[in-house]
């Protein structure tokens, strides 16, 4: 039996030369008469170590980190096929602290399987949730989700159970399940990893959801900037269909369900659920007014369950292991685990799945390894480009929805970007307005015009710091307007990074430090 060698085909690994590595391995295996069985697996999510080459040994999988094609001859010389020593060797991957300390429920299979291998999926607990759902029946399945405490992982954090109950209660037909895979926040990649690395899990999650709420078709709206995810998911759909997990008789039952993949076209706003639905319908991605809610009148005017990738990808484990199992993780009203995406100026960024309640310090210093530059942390932005900044003084806060909200911050989709002391917070605040300006759908005035004016105000603060205080007052009034008068969260949340940057780092704006009494009175 040839030794099995794993080279990930996740986008990050590919960007770091995984394909060349794989080719080199096969070439040299042939030359040396040293056969090997090459598996392109999903990524472990430890991106600082990619391409992470792993080898099956009797003791377990041994890893070799940051391997390039050029190192292949040396690896063969070092007998890596039997776990031989080499400077890149990191020992048994499963024993890495970085992985052992995680609580991977959604990403349980990350790195273990060939994403498109149905056998691999089944052997690692795949389809158990769907089969159990078919036994429980739709209503009980809805309740399982409700009891688990799962909240929307896209960022809105709305209790999934309430959405499922609402859609299930609608009598209009047909109903739809829509997966929001338009992961647009800079610094996030959990959705991409999940689709590239474990596509059948998402399929299973959507099938369970459709079964529970009475939907017969599903759509995955996947951003065009994820070509590998697109290619992988297309193949996954075909294979799942051929194997009977999608189609007229799902898993041999009388439940019919299929999924269509649709690709976005480069608009961040289409990650907002109502714009997404407009885009799916072939229209401009404009935000819809509410009411009605998509759960009542959504895609093509029909009841629609819209969920983020991670929410749906978590459904199988909840239904397979039970609500109580999932709810057992977490803190306060934030139950379960969150796949946190560490990015930016960190030594060991990557996918860290932990129960809610983990502290920011643990995430940034222990998992993240502190700043890559070695310089002190100045600011941390959580939840994407419209997330608030936290200062180094707030790193002991636990990560959960309510705690961050109390500190005028948010969890969002779980992306955490770290900045060191070279960060110019005025430039970052300007970037927030700029981001909104370029991604605005343009429907509502506070966002369409406000973001441009906000950018201009901050630029004027940067160029004429003598009048910074006046600009700051105007900027605050504008932030207030955008927060309360915008049609959707794009305009509504732009004030978060802007206000937090000014409040925490006034010097970067040429503003005096406010006295402590005033600072606490600033809370909205």
């Amino acid at each position, binding site marked *: 039996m040839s030794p099995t060698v794993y080279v990930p085909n996740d986008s990050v690994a590919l960007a770091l030369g995984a394909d060349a590595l794989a080719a080199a391995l096969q070439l040299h295996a042939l030359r040396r008469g040293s056969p090997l069985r090459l598996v392109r697996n999903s990524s472990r999510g430890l991106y600082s170590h990619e391409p992470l080459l792993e080898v099956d040994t009797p003791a377990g999988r041994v890893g070799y980190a940051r391997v390039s094609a050029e190192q292949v001859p040396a690896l063969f010389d070092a007998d890596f096929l039997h776990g031989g020593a080499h400077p890149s060797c990191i020992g048994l991957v499963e024993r890495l602290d970085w992985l052992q300390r995680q609580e991977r429920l959604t990403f349980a299979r990350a790195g273990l399987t060939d994403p498109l291998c149905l056998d691999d999926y089944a052997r690692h607990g795949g389809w158990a949730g769907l089969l159990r759902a078919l036994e429980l029946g739709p209503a009980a399945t809805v309740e399982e989700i409700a009891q688990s405490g799962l909240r929307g992982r896209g960022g809105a954090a709305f209790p999934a159970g309430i959405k499922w109950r609402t859609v299930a209660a609608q009598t209009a037909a047909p109903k739809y399940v829509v997966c929001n895979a338009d992961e647009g926040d800079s610094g996030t990649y959990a959705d991409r990893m999940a689709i590239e690395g474990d596509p059948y899990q998402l399929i299973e999650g959507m099938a369970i959801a459709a079964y529970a709420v009475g939907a017969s078709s599903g759509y995955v709206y996947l951003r065009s900037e994820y070509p590998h995810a697109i290619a992988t998911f297309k193949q996954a759909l075909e294979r799942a269909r051929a194997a009977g997990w999608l189609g007229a008789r799902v898993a041999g039952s009388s439940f019919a369900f299929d999924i269509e993949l649709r690709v976005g076209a480069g*608009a961040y*706003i289409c990650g907002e659920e109502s714009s997404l639905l407009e885009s799916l319908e072939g229209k*401009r991605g404009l935000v819809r*007014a*509410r*009411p009605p809610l998509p759960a009542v009148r959504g895609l093509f005017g029909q009841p629609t369950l819209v969920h983020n990738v991670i929410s749906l990808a978590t459904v199988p484990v909840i239904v397979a292991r039970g609500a109580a199992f999932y709810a057992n993780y977490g803190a306060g009203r934030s139950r379960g685990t969150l796949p946190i995406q560490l990015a930016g100026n960190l030594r060991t960024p990557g996918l860290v799945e932990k129960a809610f309640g983990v502290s920011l310090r643990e995430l940034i210093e222990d998992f993240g390894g502190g700043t890559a530059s070695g310089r002190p942390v100045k600011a941390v932005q959580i939840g994407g480009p419209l997330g608030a900044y936290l200062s180094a003084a707030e790193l002991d806060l636990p990560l959960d929805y309510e705690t961050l909200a109390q500190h005028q911050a948010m969890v969002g989709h779980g992306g955490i970007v770290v900045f060191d002391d070279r960060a110019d917070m005025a430039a970052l605040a300007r970037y927030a307005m700029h981001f909104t*300006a*370029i*991604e*605005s*759908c*343009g*429907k*509502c*005035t*506070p*966002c*369409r*015009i*406000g*973001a*441009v*004016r906000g950018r*201009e*105000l901050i630029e*004027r603060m940067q160029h004429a710091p003598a009048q910074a205080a006046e600009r700051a007052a*105007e900027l605050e*009034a*504008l932030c*207030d*307007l955008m927060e*309360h*008068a*915008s*049609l959707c969260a794009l305009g509504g949340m732009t004030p978060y990074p802007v206000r937090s940057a000014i409040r925490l780092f006034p010097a970067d704006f040429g503003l005096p430090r406010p006295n402590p009494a005033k600072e606490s009175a600033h809370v909205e």
Partner: protein
Amino acid sequence: MWSELRRLKADTDYGTPPRDGAPVALEIDGVAVTVPAGSSVLLAATEAGSQVPKLCACDTLEPFGSCRVCLVEIEGKRGYPASCTTPVEAGMVVRTATPRLQALRRGVLELYLSDFPADEIAGGWSEFHQTLEQVGVRSHPYGHNGASHAGAPVDQSNPYFLFDPAKCIVCSRCVRACEEIQGTFALALQGRGFDTQVVAGQNQPFFESDCVSCGACVQSCPSQALVEKSLFDGANDHATATAT
């Protein structure tokens, strides 16, 4: 449906189309009012005598909710919902003119004003000008060097009306009028964010597009970005003297 169309009044704009439905009783600014189910809060407010400022709403078109001027406060609901896209509910208690709402409205109108030709404010009589007057906005704090649509070329291709994009407030009433009332679908919004613009056909001059020159867009435009050429001095001249 036909009975709803017949409830339109020439001298009143209810903001959103009248509906047929069972009566719903609610309170607006302390005034009790009853309107058919499916009516918007804006329509109910108009019935109750509250003059809620608005720009993108018009009672011959389905509500759009983009201008953010008609915001109201509803007891028990968070935030400041747009009254045009909020259906009435029995027992609702609504306030349309609190200081908070006035401030938000002024903020929105200041933003509009910051991208409108400064020399076409004084003396204007369009719906936009009247709304500025109603809310008391005459200036804005954003300076005069910011991005704007000033200088955008005016489309004079149609013999009867012109389109001046510098005055367009992207309320989309023209696009909706061409869809819902005329049914020609000649107009669309193109581009995104601040660059959004109203275009005819495939971004063609109006005359070359599918536009059938029915004038519904001109009639619906609150800022006279679309306006009849005949309203300008020097128009309507024929060689011979006209009747007095």
